C-alpha cells in the first residue's frame, strides 16, 4: 500500500511541476499576453444615455492616421456618451472606459491608446466628434 501511495504521489507531483513550469504570461490587468503584434481599432460605436446609437452613419476609422471620425445627431448630449471600441484580437485599450465620457470639448478631442496582444505596440487613436448642423 505504501508503495502505491508513494508512486501515485510522485506521478502527481511530477504532473504539477510540469504544469507549473509552463509559461502563461499575464499583464497587470490579468489579461493573457500573446504573440500578436496587430494593433488597431476595427469598429467604433457611440451610445447616448439611453444606450441607443447617436451616430448618423458609420464612424470612419483611419488605421494609418490613427483617427476616428464620427458624426452625431443634432441634439446629442455630448457630455454623456458611451464610446465602445472593437479591437483586433488580444489588443486592449488604455485608458479603460468605465462609464460615460464627456465629449463636449470638441476643440480637444479625446484620445485612447490601443495596445497590441504582445503588449509591445501602442497606437494612440484620436476620436473626432462632429455634430449635425443646426437646421
Amino acid at each position, binding site marked *: 500500500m505504501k508503495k502505491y501511495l508513494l508512486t501515485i504521489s510522485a506521478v502527481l507531483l511530477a504532473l504539477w511541476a510540469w504544469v507549473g513550469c509552463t509559461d502563461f504570461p499575464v499583464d497587470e490587468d490579468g489579461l493573457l499576453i500573446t504573440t500578436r503584434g496587430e494593433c488597431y481599432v476595427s469598429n467604433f460605436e457611440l451610445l*447616448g444615455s*439611453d444606450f441607443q446609437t447617436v451616430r448618423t452613419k458609420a464612424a470612419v476609422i483611419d488605421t494609418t492616421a490613427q483617427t476616428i471620425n464620427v458624426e452625431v445627431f443634432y*441634439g446629442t448630449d455630448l457630455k*454623456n456618451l458611451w464610446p465602445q471600441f472593437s479591437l483586433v484580437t488580444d489588443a486592449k485599450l488604455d485608458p479603460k472606459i468605465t462609464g460615460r465620457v464627456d465629449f463636449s470639448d470638441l476643440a480637444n478631442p479625446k484620445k485612447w491608446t490601443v495596445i497590441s496582444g504582445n503588449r509591445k505596440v501602442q497606437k494612440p487613436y484620436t476620436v473626432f466628434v462632429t455634430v449635425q448642423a443646426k437646421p
Partner: protein
Amino acid sequence: MKLKYLYFIFLMSVVLLLASCQDEEYSIPSAGTDLQNDCIKRSLGPNVVGLNIEFAYAMALPKDKGKLVSAQVDATIAGANGTYLENRSFYTNSSGVDVGVTVGNPSVTNGTKTEVTFAKDTCASTLRYFYTIPEEARGKSVSFKFSAKDSNGKTVSYDMGPYTVAKMDMKLDMVLSDNNNMYFSIADMAVMNAATAAANPSKVDLVYLYRSYTTVTFLHALVSPANAEYLPDVTLPSGASNSTLFWKVYGLRDQQLARLQYGIYVDDLDFTEQNFTGAPNYGINMKAESGAWVETADGTYRAYVFVNKVDNTKKEMTISVKRYKIK
C-alpha cells in the same frame, strides 16, 4: 492498516445503501374532510394608490358535508370605492376564456369588511377580490384576512400580506400637442395650454414640441423651458424658466404605464436610486415606448415619463407618468 480498510468498506456500504433507496411513488393527495381554503395574489408589481390588488380566494368542503354560506375579506385599511369581492366563480372554457358563474349575492362592503353571501347550493368556489388601494394606505402596509363559513357553522381563514403600498403617484394617457397643450407640470401631473401656463409659469417643467426638418431628426421633443437651444420658434410664457433634468431611457416599458406584455415595473426605490449628476435638460427625437427619468428644477419631484405613442400627423405625444416626491 486493516482497520482503515474496514472503515472504508463500511463507509462505502453506507453510501451504497443510501444511494439505492428509492423515492416514494407519487400519489394523489386525499381531499380534506372539512371546510378548507386557499388564496393567491393575482396582481403583480408595485401597489399604487388607485390601482387594484387582486386575489383569488378558494374555499371548499366535501359535497356530503354541507355547503358554503358566506365568504368575507377583512382588510387592515378600508379599500377605496371600487373594492369588491366577486359573486361569481370562474372556470376556464375550452377556448381559454374565463367564464363566470354567479354563486352568490353581490358583495357588501362595510368599513374594512367585504362579504359575499352564497345564493347557490355550492360546496366549492373560488372568488376574486379586488382591493382598490385608498389614499390613506399610501406608504403604509396593508394585510388581508380571508374567511369562509359553511352550513355547519364552521369557519376557516387565510391571512395574506402585509403588502407595502408605494408612495409614488401615477397618471396615465396625458396627451401633449404641439402649439396647444404643450406644457407639462410634474407637480400637478397635468398638461397645460398657453393660458394655464401663463398663469402658472413656475409650474412649467417640460415643453412639448414637434418639428420636422429635412436635414436633422428632431420630431417629438420634451425640453425644459430653460433650454432655448431646443425650443425653436417657441414663445414661452413669461417667467417659465425651470431647468428640469432629463435622462432619456429606452426599453423601460413599465407594465403599469405601458400596459404591454413586458413585466417591468418602476417602483419607489428606482426613484431614490437615480443619479441626476450631469444630466441634460432636454430630450429630442423621443420615440414611442421610450421614456425619461426626470427631476424637477427644485429637486422636489422625480418622475418616470413613458411615451405611450406619438403621432406625426397630429403632432401629438401621449405620455403616462409615475412620480415620486423626494422632499
